[in-house]
């Protein structure tokens, strides 16, 4: 039973493919501590750094966390992809039947 129309489901498919690819890659990059994402980490960037050890472990934790979050989001997009693909298929079938 199609819930969303053909356009919405197509949009969903494209968006989720993009999400899976980009978030998957970004997850890998976070996993390997890519410097380009140093600014995109949780925590207060303006705060005074007093202890280098602490700072490093904080950053490390941020990278791991974000890598996981990226993969979680990518998995969610996988679900979205499955859903939209099913919708797309259902739409196609129903349009053929009528």
């Amino acid at each position, binding site marked *: 039973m199609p819930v969303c129309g053909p356009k919405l489901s197509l949009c969903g498919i494209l968006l989720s493919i993009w999400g899976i690819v980009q978030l998957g890659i970004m997850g890998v990059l976070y996993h390997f501590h890519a410097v380009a994402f140093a600014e*995109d980490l949780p925590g207060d960037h303006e705060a005074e750094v007093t202890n280098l050890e602490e700072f490093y472990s904080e950053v490390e934790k941020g990278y791991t966390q974000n890598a996981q979050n990226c993969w979680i989001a990518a998995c969610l997009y996988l679900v979205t992809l499955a859903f939209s693909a099913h919708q797309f298929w259902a739409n196609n079938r129903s349009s053929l039947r009528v």
Partner: protein
Amino acid sequence: MGSLFRSEEMTLCQLFLQSEAAYACVSELGELGLVQFRDLNPDVNAFQRKFVNEVRRCDEMERKLRYLEKEIKKDGIPMLDTGENPEAPQPREMIDLEATFEKLENELREVNQNAEALKRNYLELTELKQILRKTQVFFDEHEGGLNPTESMTRALISEECLARHGTLGSVQLGFVAGVILRERIPPFERMLWRACRGNVFLRQAEIETPLEDPSSVSCINTFILLVLGQTQDHRHRVLVAAAKNIKNWFVKVRKIKAIYHTLNLFNLDVTQKCLIAECWVPVLDLENIQLALRRGTERSGSSVPPILNRMETCENPPTYNHTNKFTSAFQALIDSYGIASYREMNPAPYTIITFPFLFAVMFGDLGHGMVMALFAAWMIFKEKPLAAKKTDNEIWNIFFGGRYVIFLMGVFSMYTGFIYNDIFSKSINVFGSKWTVNNISLEKMNKEKVLMLSPSTNDYEGVPYVFGMDPVWQFAQNKIIFHNSYKMKISIIFGIIHMLFGVSLSLLNHLYFNHRLDIICEFIPRIIFMSFIFLYMVLLMFIKWIMYFPTDELAYIKYSPHCAPSILITFINMILFKTTVVDKECDAHIYAGQMALQKLLVVIAVLCIPWMLFAKPFFILRGQKEKALASHQQMPSAVENGDTEGPLQNNSVHVNGGAVNNRCPGGVEEGVGEHEEDVSEMFIHQGIHTIEYVLGSVSHTASYLRLWALSLAHAQLADVLWKMVLRRGFVIQDWKGGIVLYVIFMFWACLTVSILVLMEGLSAFLHTLRLHWVEFQSKFYKGAGYAFQPFSFETILDSASQTPEE
């Protein structure tokens, strides 16, 4: 296959067709689509032409077909579109077609009338049934009421007007029941009230099942009535049968109509035995046309072959560029500015590269370029099915028509994005950054917060990044300053090269048209002016890039950024003959003899202005005088008559034109036939052109700075979008961040596509278009031609199938 550099060579031909063979021949030429017929009876109106009867019959057939099509569409029957292209039928087949359509139309009209009558009957009956049912309810209520007076006030029976009168009434009241449109109830009620002076009680109830309006059959329910069902079945059968052929018929009828329209343009021979046509034909395709004509003759069974002979003419032939699906989009970009003059240099082949490139300079981002290229690649990949699916959607048609342009723009943007090292505003470190920023102490980091990169320190290894921008700039606070200086210079360099290329193309034009005077008086001073001033500035940029380098050592201070001259200041001082004021430890000159050379360059460039302004009119005037002198000597009698020079010259030209048929007054080398009063016009014309060029070269150079401006804007917008939107998804500490990221990514992706790819893409596209139309083409392109519009069934059918759907 003609070349894209210039339009095809055209020739005017005269075509003699035997009357019997004319139809078949024109039909063949229409399939070929390479001939543009000229109207030989322009003063005859549409109703007095020879084949007006046939055209009218075709119109009638077309109307019937449209009626059929409408009915088919109403029933939602799929029309079979095999995409086949039937040949134009023989004239005698036209009668068959007419009869078929006539029969179909009559049948359909009859069926429709019957169906409508039946439906009206049915509707009336349904209304009656509903009334009975509703009134039944009212009476039931009434009977069940305890008190008759109370029931009188509560339920006095009435639906509305018309249909049925009854005499049933428990109290001594008459009643009327009927059906009325819902929106008419209030006025009806008021009217009743007034008419009966208040002695009326109105009660209404809605009929739940929707009744069909018989005059427009919009949806077909299953009817209980058998007859109606059968009528509908019959109608359906007729329409299904028609739907199979209707596209085919449309094509046939339109072809016949087009052929007769064309035949109407022809001249009749005195003997009525043959038709005479005049047409523009590409010279290279003469063979094909001859072949087509021969085929047409064979088909019509005529024995006399048609005669095609070339004519000499003074008219400017139309401009025809052979294009294929790849080049046509680029040609369309050029043509929307102005159709090239006949045989003029066509900017389209260069545009194929420069257009996507200049676009990409403004749109440089690997990610956005990829989105664009993937979209276009999909359109190219699915080309055939998408092209078969014709739609009226104008925006889609524009995108689809420009799919190759968009694809190239996307690919080039990926390339420049790679150079700028921008992918969705992030940098990627592919080859290993050449910077090692490792000696930052904790205190310094806390104190300064921001990171400035200075190439003069040891942080920089001294070897540039392998390709494009070093990714380390992403973190530097001075990134924009660094990029600006680079991108501004690059845009000016591209601009000057682009414009110089345009000026060089004008040389090819002059050479081709054999305008020696234009080469000497226009091309040479123009190119000198441009290169001595602006190309020199470009050279200065390269010199600056090569000679100066980042260093803190005092020994090299002359070549340090401290002493590096500002190109703009140097350039302004060069025009104003001023010396640049510098610190005492720096050199005032970049190289020895700079001042003298610069002065020389400026003086020569300025001298070019009067050269452009006066040389050409002067030479023309002198040429005229010499010619006049020569003709005076030839015809001394004319001089004795005391004629002025002007009319005399005019005369001589006319005599000349009359004697030698192929010499045309307009086509003769310019200046020969010009009058005295044209001299001032000539000076004004030349003055405008010179001023336009001189001022233009300054403003056009500045105009290319838009390359830098838009590129900066695009990069910053992408950066802001990442920082303001997507980063929100990354700052949450635990796994919930994943879900937040999921939602935020969706927003970010939509904004990226709508704002950065679509809107920014459109703006960059328009700026690129402007750079080509104004800055580039003004250097060589006249664009004063008119397009070749061949008689072709393909275009006729395309335009015909588009219009009625609108």
